[in-house]
Every structure is written in structure tokens, then in C-alpha cells.
């Protein structure tokens, strides 16, 4: 318990550092003192304007999206008992992308792009749920003792269907709109000004699943054993799917389909901290958030004035970092 608190405290400090960097970096240089003064008394100075209208909302949106993705990834890995699972594995990102890109194709504004993403994500959630309903409730297939592979297969097939639709939209889209679409697909925080819904959702999702964290540890040992140890397996699996889906949907609606955070952050933390979900779930939210704030800062400053999609940065930094962790701990791979 004390160890968990310590871990969360350290990660919270890391997140604060990432925030400080995000607020200090950008095209117009703000000295640390100027920054502090603007934070303390926003007034209507130029610095205050930049901080509170541009950098802070964007950093908050990044933190919320990163936290949601990492939390959803950790949950999906438990639900499917598969280390390769990520928030998008059951096709949710595909549905959201079809909705968002469809709105772009129709020439609608950013509000409708967000609404389209949310509607697409919702459609994907409902579709998987309807098709795989029995697999959540089923305690065991005869002999296999495990319903996860069927759920995974259902999700993977649906994801393939969505990706065909995405390719079709990209093919139909006029040249002028392609760039925006590709940025959305890669994950992009440019113009992400609505951070509040995502941040509230992050808090709610964490609060909703945290009381079941030890149940998740037991579920990782298999459905039959979890049942024998007193876990309400079907209800728990529904809850995990619902929480992970809502988290992913909000993240994708806020920032597009940013890859890698949801897969890598829970894994890296597992390698460092062990696999107790009571420690891991809050840690994932904090670390995922911090990572995305830092990555977005790099994305908008590295090649300024050019802005990179943040998904490029998460992947470029995430891949070698993860490989390093794997190599360092070969026995745990």
C-alpha cells in the first residue's frame, strides 16, 4: 500500500514536470518567471492569453487522452488476457475513424468530426457487444476454460471491416482533405480545445474500475479460477469492456487514434512495477497522461512552425524505449 502511494506520487511529479515543459515551450518564448507570473495572475497579458487559451487546454487534453488510452489498454490486456491487446484491438478506433473521416468527407466542422468519432466509437462498442455477448457471460468453453479468444477474434474481424471502410473514405476523399484525415488517423492534438469531458471521464473510469482491481488480478489467472475464488466473472468482464470502451471513445474523440500509448505504457509499467492492478491502473493513467503531454510538446516544437501529429512522436520514442525495457528484462518478456 505504501509502495503504491510512493509510485503514484513519483508518477504525479513526472506528470507535473511534463506539464511545466508543455507550458514553457512553444513558438513564443516565455521565461520561467514570466510563466509563473502569468499563472498566478492571468489578467489579460499576452503570456496569460497564450497559457490559458492555448497551451494549458492542449496540455490538459493531452494528459486526459493519454491517461484514458493507457488505462483502457491495461484493462483490455486483462479482459483478453493477452499482452498484445490495446485499446483499439476490438475495433473501436476503426468505428471512430469511420465516423470522424466520414464527417470530414462531408465537409462538416470540427464539432461534427468529434460527434462523428463518438458516434462511430459507440457503434463499434455496440456491435462487438451484440456479436460477442455470449462470450462475456460464458464461463468456459468445453475444454478451453477460456472465452477470451473468441471475443478477440470477433474484435479483430470487425476491426478489419472498419479498416476497409477507412480505406474507401480515403480513396474517395479529395486531395485537400487527405492531410487532415491522415493527421486524425495518426492522432493529433492540434485544435483539441475541449479537455474537460476527457479529464472527467478519466476520473470516472478510474473510480469505477478501481474497487474491482484485485478481482482483475484474480481474473488474469483464468475465468474458472476467478469464479472459484468468488469473482462474479461475467459481470466483471462486462464492466471492464464498458469502462475500457468509454475511456477509449473519449480519448479518440479528443485526439484521434493515437497509437502506442495504450499498448506500451501498461507494459512498461508492468515490467517496472509488477502486475498488481491496484498499483497498475492509477499508475497507467498518470504515466500515459504524462507521456502524451511530453510527446505533444515535442510534436509541436521539434520542427516548428511545422506541427507533427503526436502519434508519430509516441511511436518514434515508444518503440526504442519499449525495446530497451524488453531487452533489460529478457526473462519477463
Amino acid at each position, binding site marked *: *500500500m505504501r509502495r503504491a502511494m510512493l509510485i503514484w506520487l513519483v508518477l504525479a511529479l513526472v506528470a507535473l514536470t511534463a506539464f511545466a515543459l508543455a507550458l514553457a515551450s512553444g513558438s513564443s518564448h516565455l521565461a520561467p518567471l514570466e510563466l509563473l507570473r502569468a499563472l498566478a495572475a492571468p489578467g489579460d497579458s499576452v503570456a496569460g492569453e497564450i497559457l490559458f487559451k492555448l497551451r494549458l487546454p492542449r496540455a490538459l487534453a493531452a494528459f486526459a487522452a493519454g491517461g484514458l488510452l493507457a488505462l483502457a489498454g491495461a484493462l483490455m*490486456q486483462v479482459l483478453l*488476457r*493477452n*499482452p498484445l491487446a490495446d485499446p483499439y484491438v476490438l475495433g473501436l478506433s476503426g468505428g471512430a475513424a469511420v465516423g470522424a473521416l466520414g464527417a470530414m468527407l462531408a465537409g462538416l466542422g470540427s464539432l461534427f468530426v468529434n460527434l462523428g468519432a463518438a458516434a462511430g466509437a459507440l457503434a463499434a462498442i455496440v456491435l462487438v457487444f451484440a456479436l460477442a455477448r455470449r462470450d462475456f457471460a460464458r*464461463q*468456459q468453453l*468445453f475444454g478451453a*476454460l*477460456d472465452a477470451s479468444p473468441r471475443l478477440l477474434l470477433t474484435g479483430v474481424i470487425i476491426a478489419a471491416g472498419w479498416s476497409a471502410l477507412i480505406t474507401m473514405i480515403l480513396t474517395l476523399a479529395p486531395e485537400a482533405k487527405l492531410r487532415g484525415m491522415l493527421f486524425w488517423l495518426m492522432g493529433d492534438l492540434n485544435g483539441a480545445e475541449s479537455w474537460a469531458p476527457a479529464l472527467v471521464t478519466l476520473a470516472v473510469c478510474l473510480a469505477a474500475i478501481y*474497487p474491482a482491481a*484485485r*478481482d482483475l*488480478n*484474480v481474473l*488474469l*489467472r*483464468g475465468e*474458472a*479460477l476467478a*469464479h*472459484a*475464488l*468468488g*469473482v*462474479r466473472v461475467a459481470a466483471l468482464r462486462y464492466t471492464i469492456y464498458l469502462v475500457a470502451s468509454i475511456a477509449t471513445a473519449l480519448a479518440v474523440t479528443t485526439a484521434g487514434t493515437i497509437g502506442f500509448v495504450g499498448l506500451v505504457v501498461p507494459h512498461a509499467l*508492468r515490467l517496472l512495477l*509488477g*502486475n*498488481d492492478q*491496484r498499483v497498475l491502473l492509477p499508475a497507467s493513467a498518470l504515466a500515459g497522461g504524462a507521456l502524451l503531454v511530453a510527446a505533444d510538446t515535442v510534436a509541436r516544437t521539434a520542427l516548428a512552425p511545422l506541427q507533427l501529429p503526436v502519434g508519430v512522436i509516441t511511436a518514434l520514442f515508444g518503440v526504442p524505449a519499449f525495446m530497451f525495457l524488453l531487452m533489460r528484462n529478457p*526473462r*519477463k518478456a
Partner: protein
Amino acid sequence: MSVPLLEVRGLALAAGGRILVRELSFCLNSGETWCLLGPNGAGKTTLLHTVVGLREPQGGSVRLAGRALEDWPPGEAAQARGLLPQTTHDAFSASVAEIVLLGRHPYLGRWQWEGAGDREIVRAALRAMDLAGFEERDVLTLSGGERQRVALAALLVQDPPLFLLDEPVAHLDLHHQVLVLEHLGKLAREHGKAVLFTVHDLNLAARFADHALLLTPHGSVRQGPIGEVMTEHDLSYAFGHRVARLETAGRTLFIPE
């Protein structure tokens, strides 16, 4: 006579559209060790899963400690019976101590973390399964037999009155086969547990169980004290293979022809 820890009445089991057991009734009392015998696909695992509540029976009823199975809240049931599944699959690395500590799950409140007492229980269970010093080992690095003993240790930590074990000695070397079954027998004799385990080694069954439940491929069941059930005739019938029974040096041995 006290209430049986497990009471099965008129149970009918089917799987894959096939009737496995037509009507099965038996009682497991405190202090008894039962072996569950039968050929592949006769319904041994199905029976254990039904008793533990993982699947619905086609008919009949199951009572745990006098209360109908469906009336037990899951958390309380986990303190009344425990299951060793035939296979556990580890996708993620975890230390042996973490895995075995999960056996304490039914006894901890929602917000409660494991304490020193729980860790001491884990150490004792690991010692009993000859795994002292394995606490920090990663389960993914263990051999099949060591993993099996880790799963057994977790069940010992759960410490239910009724032990249901699906092939507890699978993957174990002969020393650990005897160690595990001796320990289970001792739990029944000295601590009033009831034990029901499936096993394919007839000699181990005859040596460590006091009662037997023999499922045949034709839906009928033999049951009772071990010596009455494990006869040449009934075993040969159940397994579809002639089995010879020898008495030697005070032991009963079974040899397939």
C-alpha cells in the same frame, strides 16, 4: 451425523449434446478423500465444474454444507469450496508469491491489502508444496510440475473445507505426486477437510483415497468405499480395457493388460 460438505442428488450431466451421467447421487463428508475415476470424456471435469457452479447441470441438485449451490453468494462460496482447474494459463509474468497470495482473495475486504499474516500463510503453503525459496521466482520461468504445485499452494492458501481438484498430480514427478496426495489426505484426516480429486493413476487412487467415484462411458456410475469400487470387473468395464488387480506387500496394484 453432521451435514455433508457436498451433497449431490440426482445429477444429470451432458456436454456437446452427449449425456455423460444420467443420475448421480453422493455425499462427501468431512474427513473423506474421494478419487474421481473414469476414461477421457466420461465427465470428470464436467462434474467438478458443475459442483463448483461453473455450469448448470441438466438435472438434479448440488448442496454445499447443507445450502443449495445457487443460494451461495460467490464470495461466501469461495470460503466453502475451492477448485484446482486442470490447466491454468499464464500470459503475464508474476512472482510465485503474488500468484499464491491470490488464494487469500475471498478473505480480504474490498479495500483491504494483504498483510503479514497472509504472507505467512503463503510461506507455509509453499513449504508444504516443496516450494520454499520460490517466492520471488517468475511463474513464466517455472517448469510444468512447479507451476502445478504453485496452483496447489494457492488452493491451500484458500483453505476451503471442500477441496475439488482436477488432476492435481498431472505433470508431477513421482516424489511430488506422493507428497501432494499425502498432504491432501492429511488435510482430510487431521483437519476435517473433504477432498475430491480426479486422477488417471489407479495405483495412486487406491493408495490415497478412501472412497471412489467411477464414471463409465455409458452414463452409469459406481461409487463407494475404495475397495468395493476398484474391482477388476468394474475398472475393466469403465475403461474398456482389461485391468488386473494384484495384492502384494500390503499394497493393491492395478496393471493394465
